[in-house]
């Protein structure tokens, strides 16, 4: 699931209008209250101990408790007006236990009472025991040492919630004004800011306090030609980041010039709004693509989504084993392929790594949601599948004794499970710029930004669109195209990857809305890459008449 699924859930899908779902069980608060401190650590520790003690007293062999305070601010505008400003707080306690070899979970909102929390822990044990008759094998949890009382926080230079709402509104409305002056008919412009304050404790002896920040400035500019009935949109080329308001300050190195400006660690909304409006108008007049085989040059603002769908999800061990078969699906990257040590997931220039530690990434935390220290590890090395993403109750199936640290729950009210770490394509080892890459392409398309996306339940067959499509002929960009989507098969596609630009071009894209599980949960995840070239990919024309 990605951001457009979110709008579909809200019944706004056809519009592409971006409105965030109110987080489950959240309360509306003032902007000032977003800055109020949460519970003191000794209070949280007392609550946590009440839960852990109650669970073990009722027979749990393991228990963990998450005390979560989730703060969100959304500023939503269209054209010259503010549609909504929402500040929310969601606070509660989730307790997970193993009893009779089976998992159980229960959660309670808005309480600071040790009795409430203890009762919730007892309920979790009750669930575990009621369900235990239906398990085949008891849960086998990888051992984890306790870390004692520790803490971690996202590096914050300019705290989003300290910036006055008026300053945010002014920025968005100024950007909208620039877009309207440059040919846009409509602009939807939203700023999401998130702060997760999470306290984790477990019977292993960890008490982990974490303060996680994320930000996502995001707009869609629409140009309409009523006479012809055509419409074109261009989404912002920003990325959601594990950062705070400092992402909206750009240094010269953050700006990559070229056929259009792309952004790295800092984002210039005003500059991008102007470009977006002009490009949306150009898209109305762009040539409709001729279907056929093309060499694709893919910008990181686009590739992140292809990586997410075809590598990120396919290497989640719970999917591989069948635990997600009923909704998200399973995976073609089966255990036998990994065991063979020679499954060519991609060409030999393709190297993927998973990590939960990259600064500024959405997955960056100190410990995961079951108290495991985060790290970086290889998934695909020189094109060969070498590992998966797995958590404490799964790693034994890989013959490993230690979790990879990628367990996450999207709320105190939901149970934690394996979620995607940042999965990124390593930069090419040889020096190569985007211009040099394009110079060698005879018949190709250069794609920037993410568009429509779809992949099958085992992650073989996919189709992706984009925001900007530039036709390449004999090493030159000759103009814009429209109605472009490419279809391929994961293994074929990554084996058609012939070149990856070097680390100077490495950038991250990502999403707040990676979806998985039943009931569905979201996860924030980044995917880095440098611009990469794929030879002979099937492109179709998506133009239709109704």
């Amino acid at each position, binding site marked *: 699931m990605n951001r457009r699924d979110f709008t*579909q*859930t809200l*019944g*706004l*899908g*056809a519009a*592409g209008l971006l409105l965030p779902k*109110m987080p*489950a*069980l*959240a*309360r*509306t*608060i003032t902007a000032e209250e977003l800055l109020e401190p949460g519970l003191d650590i000794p209070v949280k520790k007392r609550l946590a101990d009440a839960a852990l003690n109650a669970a073990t007293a009722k027979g749990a062999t393991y228990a963990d408790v998450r005390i979560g305070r989730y703060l969100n601010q959304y500023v939503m505008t269209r054209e010259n*007006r*503010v*549609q909504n400003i929402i500040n929310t707080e969601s606070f509660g306690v989730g307790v997970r236990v193993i009893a009779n070899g*089976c*998992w159980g979970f*229960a*959660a*309670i*909102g808005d309480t600071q009472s040790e009795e409430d929390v203890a009762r919730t822990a007892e309920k979790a044990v*009750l*669930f575990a025991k*009621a*369900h235990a008759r*239906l*398990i*085949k*094998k008891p849960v086998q949890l990888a051992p984890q040492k306790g870390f004692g009382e520790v803490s971690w926080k996202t590096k914050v230079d300019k705290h989003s919630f300290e910036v006055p709402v008026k300053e945010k509104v002014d920025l968005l409305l100024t950007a909208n004004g620039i877009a309207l002056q440059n040919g846009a*008919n*409509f602009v939807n412009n939203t700023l999401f800011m998130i702060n997760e304050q999470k306290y984790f404790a477990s019977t292993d002896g960890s008490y982990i306090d974490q303060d996680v920040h994320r930000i996502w400035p995001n707009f869609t500019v*629409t140009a309409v*030609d009523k*006479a*012809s009935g055509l*419409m074109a949109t261009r989404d912002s080329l920003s990325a959601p980041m594990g950062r705070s308001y400092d992402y909206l300050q750009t240094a010269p190195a953050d700006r990559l010039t070229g056929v259009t400006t792309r952004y790295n660690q800092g984002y210039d909304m005003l500059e991008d709004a102007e470009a977006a409006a002009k490009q949306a108008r150009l898209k109305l007049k762009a040539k409709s693509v001729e279907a056929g085989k093309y060499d694709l040059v893919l910008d990181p603002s686009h590739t992140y989504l292809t990586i997410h769908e075809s590598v990120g999800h396919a290497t989640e061990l719970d999917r591989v084993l069948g*635990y*997600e*078969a*009923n*909704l998200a*699906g399973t995976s*073609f990257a089966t255990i036998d392929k990994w065991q063979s040590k020679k499954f060519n997931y991609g060409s030999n220039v393709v190297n993927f790594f998973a990590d939960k530690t990259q600064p500024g990434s959405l997955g960056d935390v100190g410990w995961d949601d079951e108290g495991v220290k985060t790290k970086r590890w290889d998934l695909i090395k020189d094109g060969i599948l070498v590992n998966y993403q797995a958590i404490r109750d799964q790693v034994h199936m890989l013959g490993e004794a230690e979790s990879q640290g990628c367990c996450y729950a999207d709320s105190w*009210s939901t*149970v934690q499970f394996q979620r995607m770490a940042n999965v990124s394509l390593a930069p090419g080892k040889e020096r190569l710029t985007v211009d040099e890459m394009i110079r060698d392409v005879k018949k190709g398309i250069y794609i920037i930004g993410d568009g*429509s996306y*779809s*992949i*099958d339940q*085992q992650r*073989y*067959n996919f189709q992706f*669109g984009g925001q900007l499509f530039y036709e390449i002929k004999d090493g030159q960009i000759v103009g814009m195209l429209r109605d472009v989507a490419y*279809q391929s098969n994961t293994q074929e596609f990554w084996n058609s990857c012939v070149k990856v630009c070097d680390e100077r071009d490495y950038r991250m894209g990502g999403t707040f809305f990676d979806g998985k599980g*039943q*009931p569905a949960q979201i996860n924030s995840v980044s995917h880095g890459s440098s611009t990469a070239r794929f030879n002979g990919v099937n492109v*179709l024309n998506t133009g239709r008449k*109704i």
Partner: protein
Amino acid sequence: MAIISQEEAKKILEKVLTFSKADEMSVSLSGGRTSNIRYALNSVSSGGEADNMSLLITAGIGKRMGSATVNEFNDKAIERTVRRAEEIARLAPENPEYMPMIGPQSYLETPMYADTTAKMDAEARAQVAFDSVDACEQKNLSAAGFLQDTTGFSAIANSKGLFGYNKATSVDFSVTVRTADSTGSGYVTRDFNDISKLKTRAVTGIAMQKALASTNARTLEPGKYTVILEPTAMGTLLQSMMSGMDARLADEGRSFLSRKGGGTRLGEKLIDERITIYSDPMNPEAPSEPFASEGRNRTGSFLGGGVVGDGRPQEKLTWFENGVVKNMSYSRFWASQKGVKAVPPPTGFIMAGGNQSLADLIKSTDKGILVTRLWYVRMVDPKTLLQTGLTRDGTFYIENGQIKFPVKNFRFNESAIIVLNNVEALGAPMRVNGNLIPPVKARDFTFTSLSDAI
């Protein structure tokens, strides 16, 4: 969590309104519990429960609006929250599209609540999982399924005398059954308000049969085929169309309902004359919420955050009649600009069908493909409603009125508008995700590539 009765809810809401100093105030109270059990590889993998109740207070001052939430119901806490909502309103920017709150409305008493569902416990959920898993184990098949039940209520009131109350239960069950060697996969989903309607073993049997019948799938070349879309597949394809009935987007030129040259396609024949789609909150098979809400999130509407929407009553309304666009939804602001009735978007829809069974539709097909389920369906072009996605969990080739063999899954690129223009036959509707949808036979459905996924 106990459900608060209509009388108790009214008392709390009226109390809140007595504290108001704003020009106008609306308040909503909602609460309930949601519980689930999840299994995979014939074994329970997780299960749990969350409950909550909250009061959402919205103050209107001039053209400014502010909201605040609380989950304590003593006078002091309520008054503090009212003051906070008013404070937030004063600080908010003016909304040029602000609409004054509406007065008293009469709401339908929709049959959404079943005591049997409200009384479900962990044992009852475990029994459903057991029945589903046990049936599969006996045939050496592997089940992955999910059962979720919710019980909740919502009440709304405002300073202009509006009051509404609704209580509801829901059950959502789905199971994917795979063969031991993973060469076959079948799926079934059912949703009800009343758990006693769920016949777990029988329903699981449908997915089992599809899993066994879908092994050794053969390859057919992609292209245009006559398809029979089972209700689950058709419902997925219709979702974007029915959530895109907004008149403003059409007036702005960015919808499939925009008319070339400007305006909307209201009154135009857009799809086959055999197609009629309406909404009816009182439908006994698929009842829906009696007051307007912005989105269709049955679980979310019970659990905190209050009722989304402005309290407009939902009533029986036809969206497409014999292929003609009969109604479009309007925000109250846009309706006031256009001088029309502010019709809220539907919270559920019913596509009229025929009397034929799925078997009848297959029998009358010379050559075609039976599609069980569509997966990862995404919009490619909102102007044409072109969507892409894949078939999944049982796709079969039909010849001379019989299912001949399973086929490999396809990717499609197709528009619901084109499908509904190419209709050959409609079967008897059944409930899917709160809607009633018939199986649909349509010609020239566009499959663009093959998938190896099972």
